[in-house]
């Protein structure tokens, strides 16, 4: 315990010294070296309990890492208020109402799910509160209907076609099964992919199971010998692992192609499977070594949900610092304006962060991995 605390402290020190692995401008100027006392509160919405709490906890951990390193680097005093949304729009709405009525909160990191953003978007807009999600990818969110919304990940309209075209061109299935998990994220991706499969002449069996279900034996029995690919745009990696075990148990040879939540080197390890992810594996980015080490030492292994939330928190922190540097007191209005001007050249994600006029990440990309025979994730070059 003591040893891991020392490792965490050392790694955190290195992280700060490395300038968080990012540089750039926010709000029109460098945020580093804020001298005036700069105090602000940021809300953090995520599924901290419930079926996908492991994702929310990872997001919270990375938000806290970003806050600590940014506070040290920018000499700010930013605190985070946690809000547990359980990936449920109605709960996210309640949390958001609490945040919007708390005048100390100048921006929000999260929520995680697209369906939650749909629910809280109007409330955030009415309160003039900027909110940045590190995982909400539904394309419709950045069409301008939520003027205070931003995201540090790319969108389904990029991922869906990219993944579907890869499957058609490289895996050549005659028939495939695609199973949504009844969440907006998953159904959104499915609706992007199915037309491409159908147009390619592939027989598609579209199925649907709740995220809470862990028994897939009946569904796997439907996988025919001609079905060589099963697409699982899910958020719970352990469920996909079970699906893979059920395939093996029933002697089915279909390859699993998963998305985002399935990027989990501990819980999804079926050799031969593919995973596309909005987040990179930061262990493979040299500039992120210190952050990865700090995260591992303090919180253990992590997937791809944490880093985009780190980036989101960092954007908010830099915006607050730049407001302070310009001699103003952070408020919702000036932090929102500073976030709009974000232009981070290098970030934890290994790609620049800049938002278009609707809050979408400019030139965002997705990353495709294949799990090799040793159950290791290997990046497939784009």
């Amino acid at each position, binding site marked *: 315990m003591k040893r891991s605390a020392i490792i965490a402290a050392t790694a955190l020190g290195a992280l700060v010294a490395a300038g968080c692995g990012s540089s750039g401008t926010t709000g029109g100027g460098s945020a580093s070296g804020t001298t005036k006392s700069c105090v602000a509160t940021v809300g953090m919405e995520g599924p901290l*309990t*419930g*079926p996908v*709490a*492991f994702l*929310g*906890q990872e997001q919270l951990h990375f938000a806290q890492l970003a806050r600590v390193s940014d506070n040290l680097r920018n000499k700010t005093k930013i605190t985070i208020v946690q809000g547990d949304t359980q990936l449920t729009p109605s709960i996210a709405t309640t949390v958001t109402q609490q945040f919007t009525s708390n005048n100390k909160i100048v921006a929000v990191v999260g929520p995680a799910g697209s369906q939650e953003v749909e629910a809280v978007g109007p409330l955030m807009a009415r309160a003039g509160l900027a909110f940045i999600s590190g995982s909400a990818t539904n394309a419709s969110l950045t069409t301008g209907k939520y003027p205070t919304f931003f995201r540090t990940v790319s969108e389904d309209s990029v991922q869906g076609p990219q993944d579907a075209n890869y499957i058609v061109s490289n895996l050549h299935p005659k028939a495939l099964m695609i*199973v949504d998990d009844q969440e907006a994220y998953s159904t959104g991706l499915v609706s992007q992919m199915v037309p491409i499969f159908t147009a390619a002449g592939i027989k598609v069996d*579209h*199925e*649907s*199971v*709740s995220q*809470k*279900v*862990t*028994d897939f*034996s*009946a*569904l796997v*029995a*439907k996988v025919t010998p001609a079905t060589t690919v099963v697409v699982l745009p899910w958020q*719970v*990696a*352990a*469920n996909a*692992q*079970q699906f893979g*075990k059920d395939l*093996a*148990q*029933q*002697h089915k040879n279909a390859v699993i192609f998963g998305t985002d939540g399935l990027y989990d080197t*501990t*819980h999804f390890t079926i050799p031969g499977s593919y995973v596309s992810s909005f987040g990179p594996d930061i262990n493979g980015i040299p500039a992120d070594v210190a952050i990865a080490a700090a995260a591992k030492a303090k919180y253990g292994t992590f997937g791809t949900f944490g880093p985009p939330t780190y980036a989101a928190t960092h954007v908010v922190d830099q915006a607050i610092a730049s407001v302070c540097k310009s001699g103003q007191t952070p408020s919702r209005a000036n932090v929102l304006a500073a976030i709009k001007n974000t232009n981070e050249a290098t970030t934890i994600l290994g790609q620049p962060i800049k938002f278009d006029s609707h809050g979408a990440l400019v030139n965002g990309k997705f990353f495709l991995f294949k799990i090799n025979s040793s159950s290791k994730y290997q990046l497939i070059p784009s």
Partner: protein
Amino acid sequence: MAFFLQELVNGLTTGALYALVALGFTMVYGVLKLLNFAHGDLYMVGAYVGFFVIQWFGGPSHVSIPVPLLLVIMFVLAALLVGGLGVAMERFAYRPLRDAPRIAPLITAIGVSFFLENSAQLLFGAQPRIYNTSEFISLSSGIQIGSVTIDSVQIMVLVLAVLLTVGLRYLVNRTALGRQMRAVAADREAAEMLGINVNFTIAATFFIGGALAGVAGVMGGLLFNQVTPTIGFIAGLKAFTAAVVGGIGSIPGAVLGGLLIGVAESFITGYISSTYSNLLVFLLLIAVMLVRPSGLLGRVQLQKV
């Protein structure tokens, strides 16, 4: 035909799990007229107990004792610990409210459910814990009939579920404790006047119900490979439905209800679509309830006036 048989086996296995959890639901309702919504969370705790036993004996890929012995320890320990948790639940959460209006223990049960769920997250973390059953029980073990696969875990679940149900039937119908339980269920005050230790009988009911849920939790872990703090919700919901459809308070009814739901889910997923599985299963169950409001094997309660 092979597809039909495969779906039947899958459905019976899942249904057997529902049935075991439903038995606890129905027993507690029979004795206390309490819908114990925290009962599904006992299933979750049982699954965690099984997981930690595997870890204790070296982890799934390096089990340090013979696998049959490991399984016995998992089941026995889960039954004892979860049964004990059931007794504690009754003692501290429900007994003080025994004479309160029926809504009070109902709300308490929901509170206990959240307490167990959040305690599990606090103690064990939100990350799924993985059984990795195939590391110590080969996927190729079991029976292969044509293209129908019945693996050894499925066989074990089915056999154990049958044995436990038969054992429970024997306990309730042929033993002194069973007679006491039936007496308390029929009229608690009269049973007390006859010298039956009502507190002990109710505690024993919670112990047996909890033990069955604990065993079902280990079975669920072995079958579905993962345990999270929230797995009790679905298990509890399905078990509650099974108990109601079978006729709440009826032991054979709970088993029949569990198997019916498991098989219906499996066939609807296989022959129609998983998309409409819950919708069609519950439509079917509504139809059953319309025809037999007291459940398939439930008895109509006569009201004395």
